[in-house]
Structure formats: structure tokens, C-alpha cells
């Protein structure tokens, strides 16, 4: 490892080791910590008093809890998928984006994982879905999609953190070596797992990194499908549909790509990463968003056609979602996820920072609205008209959504503060290749 290469990554390593990190970071962290405070408050209240603080009722037993869950899973999945593909393809882009993308995936899945627990009536008993040796020999019910969901989300957390952590090990060792204070040194040294930079280490590291990346790929399909199964396998007319997993995977894809597009634009613009994320990369990402938006559009048409050809109850339920009380959510979802990305047909749109950011946010919001339309709108037309009611969320639920966004932002900011935001060893690798 030449000294030039060391010098090349010095700023990346110096950032976490520096005791000062700038006012903007502090302000941003303060803002997001305020939101985390809101999250703690709303979480605490929900656990202390019960989910009655939300707008949920019979038949709307689920509200923001499952919407937010499905949405955060989408964010996590999109980012994981992107990161895994970059690792596997050894794409240049990975040097700059991978660490961030993996972090997005991990923090997204942490935010998602909160909801299945807090949405329980008795959250302190969440571990009962785990097959542990209970005194009464009661096992979880393996036919329940919620049990599948437990496995899916725990697999997701494990794999995403593995992908992120394995990628971090060499850099943690670098930080250990450069740390000036013994306590910091010990901290990084503990997590560096005794990395000595030997070739043997590198061989194992590369194999492990790619193995986990490969495992991520099917997980995306499994995770989104499992979320969809929670709905599709029920009797609720608006949900009981085999095409629902496809819908979740496709909308999850456009959501993930849009999130990555958003982050890519923000990184490129905020950290001046034009050399790493060039126009061609952004162009490619934009085309991908557009293509997946078209797929989503096709799926919306498919949904309409399927519902209109289905049993009357399903048709009623679909028509109610599209034209009923919650129709605005459906149409806003169509507008944000399908129609808005069409602007990317124009080259100037694909090169605009502002449009890229707006589009990233719009698709993310659109997918949230789509989940709302499916979950809440789906409850509204059940079999017995006597139980046709409505749902309106409460401030507690909104606090949970905003709070998890704050948690997500805070985790990202802390990550940028304590760990190298861009992979140092990959950058050095790139630098070497460039010089060679």
C-alpha cells in the first residue's frame, strides 16, 4: 500500500477521527434528534397506554403501523438491492455509494423493524413469535404469515448488517491504526476483529462480502412478497389477490431506485462527488427509475383489469379504493409513482439536481400513499356492509412516521460522523487501478 494511496483516503479517515464536525452537521443532528425524541415519546405512549392512541379500530385494525412498516421495508430493500448489485458487478459506482446505500438499507430495516413490535397489543410479549422452548411447549403458528414475516425481517436485519459490517472491517482497521486516543483505538480495534491486512484476510473478506451480496438478491423478493402475503393471504376482498406480491416487489423496486437516485444526487451535489458519480451513472439510474415506473404503471393497469374481472366483492372493493373515500390516496400514488417519473424521458430532466431530488421524494411519497390506499382503502369494503366504516389517523401515528424518519436521519448522520462514509479500501483500490 503506497503512501500516496494512504494520503488519498486520509480525509475520509480523518473525518470520523476528528473531534469537530462542523455546525451544519450539529444542527442537522439536533433536528433529527428532536424527531427521535418525538419517536420515543410516541413509542412510549403507545406502549404505555396501548395502540388505542392510534386511529385503528374494528375493522381497520392496522393503520400507519403497517403502512410505515411496508414503506420502510421498501426503502431498505431498494437500497440493499442496489448495493448488492454494485458489489457483485464490481461497479465503479460502488466505491462512492455503496457504504451509504448499505447504511440506508440497514437503518431502513431498523425503522421498519420497530413497527411489527410496537403495533402489538402487548408489545413486551413480541418474542412469543420466536420458537423458543416455552414451558408449555407452545410453538409459533407456522401457517401464519406474521410468523413468516418475523423470519423475513430478522433475516433481512442480519443480512443487511452483515453486508454493511463486512464491508466496514478493513476500514475499521485503518481507523484503529490512525486513532490518536487509546479509547478510540480500542473502540475501532474491537470492531476491526483483529484485521491485519494479510492476503489471506483479503481473500476471505472478498468471498464473504460477495456471498452476503448474493444472498441479498433473493431476499428482496422474499421480503417484499412476505409483506404482501400478510395482506394477500387474508380474506379481505381488496387484498385477497395473487398479484399482490408482484405489486409490492415492483413498487418496492421503483421506490428503492428512486431513493438511491435521491441519495446519489444529494451525495454528488453535497459532497462534490462528480468524479465518482458521473453523468453517465446518473443517466443510467434515471433510466432505471423510468423503466420501473413504467412497470409499476403496467401493474396498476393489471390490477384494475384483474379486479374488474374478479368476483363482485373484489370489484366493489377495488372501485371503492379508486373512487371511494380514500380515492385521493390511490390517484396521488399513481401520479407520484407512475406519471411523475415520465418526465425523465427528457434529457434535461435527467441532468437536473432539483428534479432528481423532487422525483426521488415524489416516488417515495407515492409508494407510501400506495401502501395507504391498499391497507386502509382495502379495509373499507369488507363482506358485511354493516361493518363499513372509516379510519382517520391520529397525531401519535403521524408522530411515529415522522419520528422514524428522524431516527433514520440521525442514524445516517451519526454514521457519517463515526465511520468513513465512503469505503476507503475500495477507494484505494480504485486509485491503484487508475495509476496502474
Amino acid at each position, binding site marked *: 500500500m503506497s503512501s500516496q494511496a494512504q494520503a488519498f483516503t486520509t480525509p475520509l479517515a480523518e473525518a470520523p477521527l476528528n473531534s469537530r464536525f462542523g455546525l451544519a452537521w450539529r444542527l442537522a443532528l439536533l433536528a433529527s434528534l428532536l424527531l427521535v425524541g418525538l419517536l420515543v415519546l410516541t413509542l412510549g405512549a403507545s406502549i404505555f397506554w396501548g395502540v388505542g392512541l392510534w386511529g385503528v379500530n374494528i375493522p381497520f385494525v392496522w393503520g400507519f403501523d403497517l403502512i410505515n412498516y411496508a414503506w420502510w421495508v421498501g426503502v431498505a430493500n431498494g437500497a440493499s438491492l442496489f448495493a448488492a448489485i454494485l458489489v457483485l458487478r464490481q461497479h465503479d459506482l460502488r466505491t462512492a455509494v455503496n457504504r451509504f446505500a448499505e447504511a440506508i438499507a440497514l437503518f431502513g430495516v431498523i425503522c421498519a423493524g420497530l413497527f411489527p413490535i410496537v403495533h402489538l397489543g402487548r408489545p413486551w*410479549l413480541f418474542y412469543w*413469535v420466536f420458537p423458543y422452548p416455552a414451558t408449555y411447549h407452545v410453538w409459533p403458528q407456522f401457517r401464519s404469515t406474521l410468523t413468516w414475516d418475523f423470519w423475513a425481517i430478522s433475516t433481512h436485519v442480519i443480512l443487511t448488517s452483515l453486508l454493511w459490517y463486512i464491508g466496514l472491517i478493513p476500514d475499521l482497521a485503518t481507523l484503529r491504526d490512525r486513532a490518536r486516543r487509546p479509547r478510540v483505538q480500542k473502540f475501532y480495534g474491537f470492531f476491526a476483529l483483529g484485521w491485519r491486512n494479510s492476503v489471506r484476510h483479503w481473500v476471505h473478506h472478498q468471498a464473504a462480502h460477495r456471498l452476503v451480496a448474493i444472498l441479498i438478491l433473493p431476499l428482496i423478493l422474499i421480503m417484499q412478497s412476505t409483506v404482501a402475503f400478510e395482506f394477500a393471504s387474508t380474506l379481505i376482498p381488496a387484498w385477497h389477490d395473487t398479484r399482490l406480491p408482484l405489486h409490492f416487489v415492483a413498487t418496492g423496486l421503483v421506490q428503492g431506485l428512486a431513493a438511491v437516485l435521491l441519495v446519489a444526487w444529494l451525495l454528488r451535489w453535497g459532497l462534490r462527488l462528480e468524479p465518482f458519480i458521473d453523468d453517465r451513472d446518473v443517466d443510467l439510474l434515471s433510466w432505471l427509475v423510468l423503466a420501473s415506473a413504467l412497470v409499476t404503471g403496467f401493474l396498476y393497469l393489471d390490477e384494475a383489469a384483474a379486479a374488474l374481472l374478479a368476483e363482485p366483492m373484489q370489484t366493489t372493493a377495488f372501485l371503492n379504493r379508486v373512487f371511494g373515500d380514500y380515492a385521493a390516496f390511490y390517484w396521488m400514488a399513481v401520479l407520484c409513482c407512475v406519471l411523475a417519473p415520465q418526465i425523465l424521458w427528457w434529457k434535461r430532466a435527467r441532468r437536473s439536481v432539483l428534479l432528481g431530488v423532487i422525483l426521488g421524494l415524489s416516488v417515495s411519497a407515492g409508494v407510501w400513499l400506495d401502501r395507504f390506499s391498499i391497507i386502509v382503502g382495502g379495509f373499507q369494503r369488507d363482506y358485511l356492509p*354493516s361493518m363499513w366504516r372509516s379510519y382517520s389517523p391520529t397525531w401519535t401515528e403521524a408522530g411515529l412516521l415522522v419520528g422514524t424518519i428522524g431516527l433514520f436521519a440521525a442514524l445516517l448522520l451519526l454514521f457519517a460522523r463515526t465511520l468513513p462514509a465512503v469505503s476507503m479500501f475500495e477507494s484505494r483500490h480504485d486509485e491503484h487501478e487508475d495509476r496502474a
Partner: protein
Amino acid sequence: MNDSPPFSSGSAPSAPRRLWRSLEELQDAPDLQAWLDAEFPNIARAGSMDRRSWLRLVGASLALAGLPACSGEGAVGDPPLLSPPEHLPGHVPGTPLFVATSLELAGLGRGVLVKTQEGRPFKIEGNPLHPASLGATDVWAQAEVLSLYDPDRSRTPLQQGAERTWEDAERLLATMRTELAFGRGKGWRFLLPQTASPTLDRLVAAMRQGFPEARWHRPAPLAPSGAQAGAISAFGRAVDLVPDLTQADLVLTLGGDIFLFEPGHIRLAADWQARRRNREKPLPRLVAVESTPSLAGARADQRIPLRPRLVEGFAHALWAGLAQNAVPAEAHPAVATLLAELRRAGPRAVVLAGREQPAAVHALALAINAHLGAFGTTVHAIEPVVAPTPPEEDLPALAEAITAGEVSGLVILGANPAYDAPADLDFGRLVRRVPLSVHLGFGRDETAAASTWHLPKCHPLESFGDLRAFDGIVGFRQPACVRLVPSLSPEELLANLLGQAPDGRELLAATWAEQWGADFDIRFTRALEDGVVEGSAAPRIPVALRPDWSPAPRPPLPPAELDILFSLDPSLWDGSYANNAWLQELPKPLTKQVWGNAALIAPETAAARGLSTGDLIEVIAGERRVAAPVWLLPGHAPDTVTLPLGYGRESAGAVGWRVGFDAYLLRTAADPWITSGTLTPLGSQVELISTQHHHALPGHAVFRIVSADRPDAGGPPAKLPSLYPEWRYEGHAWGMSIDLDACIGCNACVIACQAENNVMVVGPEEVARGREMHWLRIDRYHGGAPENPDTFFQPVLCMHCEKAPCEVVCPVNATVHSAEGLNDMVYNRCVGTRTCSNNCPYKVRRFNFFDYSSAELAPPDDALNPHVTIRERGVMEKCTYCIQRIWTARTQANVENRPIRDGEIVTACQQACPTQAFRFGDVNDENSAVSRLKREPRDYAMLGELNTQPRTTYLARIAPTGENGG
């Protein structure tokens, strides 16, 4: 409770709880007598009424009976009768005891059995021996058990609102006795609502005799005043009608609600359904002419909505057609066909006019009945069970006297005139003008606030008495528990003023000892055990239309923009149940409104005035006005507004305080039921809480209607494939059948289920959010035009599906299939994902979103059924088919070493139902009643096409027959 008088040590809840077999026995306990004699020798002296002995008797009454058990002397001599369960011969500890008693509604009795355990009542069932019950109940009887434990009930005497001890109260009563005796009652007025109680009547007669100068006022605010006047006009004498609907081929109702509000409503519903079930005769017909949609109207084969002012003309046209064969040209189009039907049915027809109808309508109804020869077959006349109130004994006369300053003392026994007296009397203000007013009341109500003195009245489940039912049969009232607070019954207060021992049992016994003579002991015990006095039915009296009777010439009606009709409330009755949370949260049968009332109007009337449900209006009648939200009720008569009474209480307790609007503010002495006026929109809106919106009948899959000739509901759904194997049942397999043709939507099952299964009350905010907890709900659908729709009721509870969708989705196995086919809910395994409710197509699962069982509105622990678990927060719950009753029957059968008999297990809903719409039993047993019902062609499974294979199936409703049917 802390500052209660010394004697209360026995009556306070801290007293040891004891079981007894028959409360009347325990007072004869020798130990008790000995103890009383030793402690209170004064009581032994007849007629002596010194202060302390009186106090001790009043407050302690039965509670004292617990003391011998504490004295430790029970080991010697006879065992105390009020003994711990283990000492009661034949009684197994932990099993409930039943006490037969009577509960009052509008002055008439309904027989009930009170289920008690460890000395506290927790459930009320109908008394099968009582003619006004036949084993069934109504919502008000069911809810009495919650009222008993009402935390807001009056606990101490009050003077000008300040708490006083019972000793102070006794000083007051002593003064009153002296004053009454001194002036022979001059200047004193007694206000006691009319009740059909022989003992009260006896005491009132004694008071009248003892204090001849005192004046008595016996108003009957809810009495069908028109009925008596109509009878006097048509027959020359006042009579009460006892319909026998089992004999009727045609029932025509003119207003009223024979299934909910009329005297004997439980019996009428039962008889009507018995007649429908009689397969030897063609189906009977029920025709309802009414202004406000009622349960009878909903069940009717033909319903004719009419403005109140047009009902008399309708009845007149019928009479003219029958008697003179001349139907007026302007008569309602339905008259002609109805005439033909009446003629065909002849003596097997009956015309019943509602309590709100004027005398002329009642007279016409009686005349038609007499003309058809219905008296003797479908209806009988008896002496009025509640004596008619002469005008000088009515409230206006009292109001006049107070205004004239003639009243120096006023005693109000159990009534609440400051709330429910006619508004033009302004009674609350009048009471305040009386120098000394003494009010005996169960709660610190509006009248308590207006009176100088208030004394706590005991609950009917705490005292002795007697009550006649609508047909005159006497039922005894007896305590089912010790007095929870020191209090008096009206009988005891009167006895005290007469200088007699205020001992409820003795007072009751004295009434009947006169009549029974030597047989007294046997008959008295018998009556207390049965709850009814054998052979006490009022004799039928022959009636004949006065030869000179002709319908009163109809005065030309003054034009009115709007007719105003006052009605009782299907939840709160007249407002006396305002502080009962079960009833406040009970969805009204037709509107499904809870926690409030609304001015009911027809949708077309609302449309003409640009009103929608929830808009605030001001209803103006003369100089009086009241603001109320409107409710658009399909089938309501046009240009009419119905104002349900019973809400807007200013002083009812924490639950009933200021819920809804007070319609009494418009009700005058002259027009207690029907008046006219106008309405003005106020331009603002309020949110009205209801559990169901108006929905049209959802096709024919959910609620099925079959014709009488071809009662085929489509049979069981085709065998659908399933991934899961079929369940096998070696022993029992419980199932239920619900007859939609029998359901009248009266809600008795809803409250019965709530009482039996400790279903929590959640409050208005929570219901508005859609979180009511009722395990059993009654779905209401409409069909046809909104001007006059058909109405259908469908009780929905857990279907206990064979292929239960809830079972497969629970991640923790908290809802599982039992070996007898029940869909069990394991509360302590539930983590609360709510996904079972998601997957339940019937939406019968209820979730504890908050900790409702320890919230403000939760019933006191004593009111809860000790056999049913209390559910904690975050847990799903639902109908269990009353699994505790299944296990009780199983235990009993095991003890007796025999199989469980068919019909031995009766679910709470089934037991309460007046029309026996529910049937529960073993579907593995081919000969069980439920199996036979499930083999009927009318049987169908709701949403059977989903292959849930529900255990609960329905019997389709039979479509109306005959003219204009359908």
C-alpha cells in the same frame, strides 16, 4: 360510606358476604331474633318507633342477619340461615343461587330471576313462570344489575345539598310524623307515581285514612292516558287490554310499539312469534300504522307511515268501512284492502293503539275490536291494573296548589318530577317554593337538587314489595343482596310515617296475610320462591260497545307545519336509566345511535329543508323551544319529528350527565305525546355517534329472505376444496341456529351478552372511533324506498367456523379450534397483532385497544360475572358461545354421571330472547333441536361461499304474505 350511621357496619360492603337460599327465611333466623332482641329491645314493642330502633332496622335490615355468623355462637343450636355456602344444605360453594323477583317498568312488573353468587347479584334472567316474561327479558331488566352497583347512587341523606347522617334524617321524619299527626296531614302533599303494587296501595290507603287532610298525587307520566279515556268513551268504563297474539291472524297496530314500549311487550313479542311458528295455521299478518318507525313496524308485513294527525282519520275510515260500510272518499288507499283483511279475519283480528295515541284513536280501536268480536279471542279486557289518575291527583293540580301556597310539606317518593314533569309546570322551581320538600330517590337527581331533603332509596334488588304485571298477575319483589348502602324503599318510608316498623318483608306479608288467612305461610313462601302469586291474574271482564257510542266528530285539524311526537327511548326508556353505561352504549335498534339521542325526521322532509344527519335544529312548540341534532330515519312519517325522551339529564351521575338533548322541555301537560310546531335549522353540526351507517340489503347472500310457500334458502354451500383436513368430533360439536324470522331487533341479547361475559363499556369517544366491544351485534339493513323501507335485523356473533380464517393467521396460536368445535380464544396467549380480526369476514372480534377493564366506565368488580375472565389491554376477545355455561352443564352432567341433555346449555343471548330466535346445542346429535333446525330448508350459512363453514347458521326470514306484502 365512612360517615354512615352506626348500624351500617352490617350493611357496608365490608360485611362478610354470605349466601342464602331464600331471603325471606333468613329474617326468621332465631339467632338473628335473639340478637335483635338483646341489642334493640324496642323493636319488640309493636308500634313503638323511637329513633334509634327505627334507624337500626332501616339501615341494617337484612344486613344485620350476617352478624350471627360472626358471633361465633352458630355452633350451638340451629345453624344460621344466612350462612357460609358450605353450611347451606345442598349448596355447592361457587355455584350461583337464583332469587325470583319483579322489576318495574312504567308501573308494571316483569318477573325476573336474579343470579347471585357469594351474596352479590351479577346477572338477571327472565322468570319462566311470570306471564310478562316467560323466561325472557328486555334491555332494562338486564341492565338493572349494573344500576344496582351504580357508583353515583345516593349514599347519604342530604339537606339542602349537604350530607347528613341517618340520625338527622330520622329527626326529620319524627318531626314529619308529629306534624302529620297534629294537622291530620293538612298542608301536606305526597307525590308517588302510579305503580301496580298492592302493598303500596295498601299503605297509601292507610296514609289517606290516617292523615285525611293530606293530599295524594299519583301521576302516571308514561301511562297511555288516551287508552283509559278511550275505553270510558267506548265502553263506559276504564279497562286494560290483554292481547293474546297466539290467537291472532291479523294484528293492526295504530302507533306504539308492541314489541318494545307497550305494556307486556316481552310477552307480546313471544306470543307473536309463537303464532308465526304455529304451522297448522297460515302465517299471521302484522300491519303497522305509525309515525315513528318501530320494532313492530320493522317486523310488520305491511307498514303504513302516517303523520300523527292522520292516524285518527285512518282509524275512523276503518271504523266507517266496517260499521257503516262507507269508506270516506278521502281515506288512505290502504284502508280498502285492510278492511277486507279485517273482515276476513273477523274475531281473529285485533287492533292495538299505542300509548301515545289520543283517546279517539283508542276508542276507535276498541270499537273495531268489539265490532269484529275480537274480545274473548285475540284480546281480553281486565280491570285497569294501574288505577286511572283522577285529575285532582295529577301533577297540574299539585302545581296549582304549590303556586297557591297551599303546600307546606311535600313528600316525593321515587319520582323525578323536576326532570320529567310537563315543562309548562316548571316543577323544579315549584319544588323549591315548598317550605319542606322531602325526596326519596335512588340517585341525586334533579328533584333531589330541588328538594330541601333527599333520602337514598334502595334498589329494587334490595327490598321487598309486590307488583302486578300487565295482565294483573302479582309478582313479589324480594332482595337479592344486602343493602349496599343504608337506604329506604318507598314502602318503608310510608310505614315509618305511619308509625309502623319499616320492615319491607313485614309490610309485604301484612298485605297478603289479610287475603290468605290460614294459608298464608305456605302461599307466601311459594310466591317468594316462584316470583309470582298463583291465581292472581285479573279476571276478564265482559265489555260491550255503548249503544250510543259514535266516534267523536273529528275536529278540523289546525294546519301545522310540523307534527311533534314524543317517544320513549329504546335505550334509556324515560331517562331513569340515564346513568347506566350499558344502556348508554347500546346501539338503538333502528338508528344504531349510542351515547345520545336525536330528533328523528324523514329523509324527504330533511331534503326539503336542506338538512342532513347531525345538523342542529331548533324545534319550536308554542313558546317552548329545544335545540337538537337531526337524524334522517328512513320510513319516518313526513313532516313529523320524533323527539326521544330520556336524555339531557342535568343531574344523573357521571355517566348520564348532559348526554343528548332533553325533549321533556317541549312536553306539556296538555299534549304529553303529540303536539305541533315548527323547526328552524341552526346552521351548525354536531357529530352523532353510531355503530352502523344506513346500508341497503347486501344482495341475497348475507341476509336471505324466502317465501312462505317455498322456504328454500339455497341450502348449504357446495362442498369446496380446502388444503386443510376436516375436523373430527368424537363427542359434542356445539352449534347455533339463529332464526331471522323471529328476530325483532329488541337488543335484549346484546345486553344479556354484555352482562354475562363482562363486556366492557368504552365510552362515546371510543365508539366514535369504531371500538365498541359488544360480542353480539345486531346488523340492521334496509330494503326498498327510503320513504317506507323494509327493515331487517340480523344478530351477528362469532360463527365458530369449522375452517376458521382467524385460526391460521395468528402467529402465536392464541385462537385455536377446540375438540368440540369451538373457536377458542386464549386471552393470555394473545399478543395483539389483530390479524385474526383482519381475516374474520364477519368482523365479530373485538380488541382491547386500551385497558377498558380498569377504565372509568368499567363496571364495579361486584357487578362482574365471576365465571368469566376479565380481558386486559392489548388482547383480542369475542363470543365464546358462553363457554362458562357449557362447562357448568358439563360439570353438572359429570356429577350426575349422565350425558349433557339437549337444551341444558342455554347461551345468554338465547336465554334473554323473547322470540327464541337463538337455539344452541350439539350438532353431532342428530336429534338435538339445533340439528333439526339446521336441517330446515330455511337454513343457510352467512358467507358460506368463503368456505369458512360456520357453526352458527341462520334461518332465512320469511317474506311478508298477503295483500301488499313484500
